[in-house]
């Protein structure tokens, strides 16, 4: 891990929040339900943190917590992406677009 840099993380947070608001506001209302499940899946990126804790095996305690955390995140990743795609598959345009 790079050396702690509080301020660059604050910058990332600030900018990501701006991106988030702009991007989300442009999401078509039609797709607000899929949006919920997609952001779910994406924020399960938390898995990367848990993986290291589960894998570095520093203490039994941390390994257990890490493993459970990985499982929890993995659940969100799998179900989140699958259900989003399942919903999106259903959206189609009128054949002869009027």
């Amino acid at each position, binding site marked *: 891990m790079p050396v702690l840099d509080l301020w660059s993380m604050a910058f990332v947070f600030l900018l990501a929040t701006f991106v988030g608001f702009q991007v989300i506001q442009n999401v078509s209302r039609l797709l607000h339900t*899929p949006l919920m499940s997609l952001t779910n899946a994406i924020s399960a990126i938390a898995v990367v943190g848990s993986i290291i804790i589960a894998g570095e095996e520093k203490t039994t305690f941390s390994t257990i917590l*890490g493993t459970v955390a990985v499982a929890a995140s993995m659940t969100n990743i799998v179900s989140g992406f699958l259900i989003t795609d399942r919903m999106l598959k259903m959206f189609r345009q*009128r054949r002869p677009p009027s």
Partner: protein
Amino acid sequence: MSPAEHLTQASYLAAAALFILSLRWLSDPKTARRGVSAGVAGMAAAIVGTLLHPDIVNYTWIIVAFVVGTAIGVPLSRVPLTAVPQRTALSHAFGGLAAGLVGTAKYSLWLQSGELTTFRMAAIGIEVILGYVTFTGSLMAAGKLMEIVPTRPMTYRGQNVVNLGLLAIAAGAAVLLLFRPGSWQLFPAIIVLSLLFGVLLIMPIGGADMPTVISLLNAYAGLSAVAMGFVLENKVLITAGALDGSSGLILSIIMCRAMNRSFTNVLFGAFGQVQASAAGGEARTVKSGTARDAADLLENASKVVIVPGYGMAVAQAQHRVKEIYDQLTKRGIDVKFAIHPVAGRMPGHMNVLLAEADLPYDALIEMDEINRDLPQTDVVLVVGANDVVNPAARHDAKSPIYGMPIIDADRAKFVIANKRSMNPGFAGIDNELYYADNTLMIFGDAKAVLGDVVKVLAGDATP
């Protein structure tokens, strides 16, 4: 930095970019599915990048966890669309749990290795509190939606004081830890208090308010991911958390606006209670008819607008609606759907259901646009919608939904309304639309009633 670490970092950067693109592509149904692929790609990149990390000595548990997660995830993705709110609540719970556990683990590790800086302690405190609150809060929300937990608001005097008090203590303990990180006994206390607060926060909120609450919990989940990012100094986590958080916040704002209510009102208003009080409206007469009457009216119209609501969702009647749409369009009748932003129980609820029934999304018109056409519409068919077509929102200043934008079904030449009884809807109030002279009520379960209408239209059998 070792080359491996550079690779990891590069994968995180790529993941962040892909996640943003993924959400951008959701702005249009045409590109939406590409969005999912981008999301998957980003996730894969980040995971592979992490597995390369030198600190990892043993992959067994990771693989076990992957298998378990997949085993739970796949069935969870197969739930019927009406259960989507529950599923979302559950996944927030998992997200919160993960954040809480990682924070706990990190605390124990850094406590031993003595690397627990004040900044790290602060970040962990925020992560853990948000994480565990989201965990139990979301479980409660899911429980209420699945009606495992009693859905009616459970309230008692001074409740808000107690809740906020608990939160304050938890936060206080966290602050204390900043100065004496050694006194680890405080940590379990924080965990327990947070878990408890999560439960108590949701208890007083009516089951029907859960969708809004879920979106708020979504924002919390995002924030806890951000805090986790600060703890682990992981920028892709901060990015994804911020994206998640803003989405949760924006959706809950949209819902509150469309319901014309404030956050505080949703969180502390114990709204569901209104239901009890306002339910019994004085008995006025309504015109009630049969499926055949409805079919005749529809057949002889040239412009029809269908207003679906929560009732269509619970009755799973979207496929019948599609058949009616086909029957009418076959006759050259112009059929449109009026989609209210908060029809149903979650944002975009009607859109997914109608899409599931294979209806073209360009036939689904948003409220403001359809309201312009309604005065020239011959027949409006209301399918299990109630509050979103309640004219009281326009003129009755005393009504709890006064000011909420609605679909002006009452301005059409004729209205056919289907529901099972005269019971009120979500807001628990009477709807004068049903008593209007130009309104015909068809009582019964939406699926059954519309099924009969289709039969008549299809010309076979006569119910």
